[in-house]
């Protein structure tokens, strides 16, 4: 327990929107998370960095219901929660883009955007026969993509498998951004993207923050992280090595902490 310099929520002026205490997650012998705590405050971008296998993805999976931690506690706006599956987190307004891109390749863009929360037609057709409002969802999908400035996706009826890697990523990010009402979590959203698309996603992250939505952003790209993050959580060997800010530390410092060459 080296990294438990964290303060209980009461003493903070602001209440964290999302708070994790001492999360532990093991996979057989492998320790994915070894007692990690994390606070996410309103209107901030919290970056999570760390080497491969440091437990970044496992951490956000435990925060978003994709994995159930072995032990540890989770609070949303001060209320303790127990997420058993991803939809539990979604109900609390937490939207996630997972690293492995949780999109369904054969379904079209609009279907993917609304996957798991399809909208039905108004009136008896929708109520009685549960008919989907396909047209409405397509229209909204288009509006949402335009609003988010994702202009490379003109046609929302294309199967996602026909899109380029970057466009697929845009679909996943758009889905999270469109439906996240409390927290948006992005696990390496710029990994497959070109420069222009990366900047678009980073701008999107800033826009979300400006709308008051806190964002958790995992990235290996230090310039990106130092560009958009308000605070940086450094994962190392399943633990939180330090939480720094772009003002308090340089990129070199961050990398040193990440690799264990220095401590905060």
């Amino acid at each position: 327990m080296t990294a438990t310099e964290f303060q209980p929520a009461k003493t903070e002026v602001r209440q964290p929107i999302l708070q994790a205490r001492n999360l532990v997650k093991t996979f057989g012998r492998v320790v994915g998370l070894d007692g990690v705590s994390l606070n996410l405050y309103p209107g901030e971008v919290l970056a999570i960095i760390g080497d491969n296998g440091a437990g970044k993805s496992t951490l956000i999976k435990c925060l978003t219901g994709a994995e159930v931690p072995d032990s540890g506690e989770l609070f949303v706006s001060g209320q303790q929660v127990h997420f058993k599956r991803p939809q539990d987190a979604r109900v609390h307004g937490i939207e996630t883009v997972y690293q492995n891109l949780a999109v369904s390749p054969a379904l079209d863009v609009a279907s993917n955007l609304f996957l798991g929360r399809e909208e039905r037609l108004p009136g008896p057709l929708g109520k009685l026969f549960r008919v989907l409002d396909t047209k409405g969802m397509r229209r909204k999908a288009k509006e949402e993509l335009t609003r988010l400035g994702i202009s490379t996706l003109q046609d929302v009826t294309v199967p996602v498998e026909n899109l380029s890697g970057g466009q697929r990523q845009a679909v996943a990010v758009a889905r999270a951004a469109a439906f996240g009402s409390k927290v948006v979590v992005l696990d390496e959203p710029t990994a497959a993207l070109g420069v222009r698309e990366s900047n678009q996603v980073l701008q999107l992250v800033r826009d979300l923050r400006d709308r008051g939505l806190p964002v958790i952003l995992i990235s290996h790209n230090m310039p990106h992280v130092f560009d958009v993050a308000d605070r940086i959580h450094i994962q190392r060997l399943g633990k939180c090595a330090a939480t720094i800010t772009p003002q308090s530390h340089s990129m070199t410092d961050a990398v040193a902490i990440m690799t264990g060459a220095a401590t905060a």
Partner: protein
Amino acid sequence: MTQQQTAGPPAAGHADPAEEFLDRQTPLSRIRNILHRYPALSPAIVLLVAVVVFGLLNERFLRVENLSLITQQVSVVGTLAIAQTLIILTAGIDLSVGAVMILASMVVAQLAVGSGMPAPLALLLGLVVGLAAGALNGFLVTRFRLPPFIVTLGTLNIFIAVTLLYSGGSTVRGSSMPGLLTWMGSTFPVGPVRISTGVVMMLLLYIAVAFILGKTAWGRHVYAVGDDKEAARLAGIPVNRVLMSVYLAAGAVLAVGAWIQIGRTNAASPNAGVDLNLDSITAVVIGGTSLFGGRGSIWGSLLGALIVGVFRNGLSLAGLDVLYQTLAVGVLIILAVSIDQWIRKVKS
């Protein structure tokens, strides 16, 4: 089909901005993309060609009596193919569809004839049998995460044994049954054609399932689960619930299939339909549904069932031995799977 090689909007279709994302290098890859988008297209073409060729080979083939006979011959396998399609769409496979149907048909017949139960009640209990069988398969697949192939191979044998134990191996003849049980075998004239109630029932099931698959959230979730289970789970779809409901729905369809089978064969026999399992899979595969799950259309399966029926009928009218029918069906299966593999390459 006579599209110019030059780039430009498709001849008849709407100008599709989607095309800008599609690989449009060669006419071949363009065909591939079209087949990819409309999986029922290739079986439709095959069926059309088969009907024309067999019609030319033997003028008796295209007579209305013969065509109506083909539809009746197809009604049972066509119904089983509905259940099979649902399961294959989730990247599963059901080897027990035929056995479940026969079990349900024996239960219905024995209850109505042996125990003197009112026919509607017997049919209702047949539905319960179908649902119970589906529940067992679904339970084993979702709870123990066993591959559907193995699960249904096991339950196939269990259901066959239970059927023989329950029926004592004896056939119940249609003449001893109440009229409602054999109703699916009765025919009525539509113009010059005689249509059987069983065919109408099968078509109604197709319409209902096509509607549910295409227009409801459940249908979309079935595709998503078959497409990529983990992605579906992360998107918040209750994967196991969807799988369970698919096996239950399949069981219900099979119970209706049992009713059609009784009418079609005018009997309930525990030894009937050993090859129905494979025929249903054949219909689905020829119909363009991917064995890898997540892609296909229910109408393709109807076309697939019709293709098998047309080949069997047409080849026998052409005076060819039954062996050649089997040979032809075998070739069709391999062709269909090869086309599917080729289409799936669009992904990469």
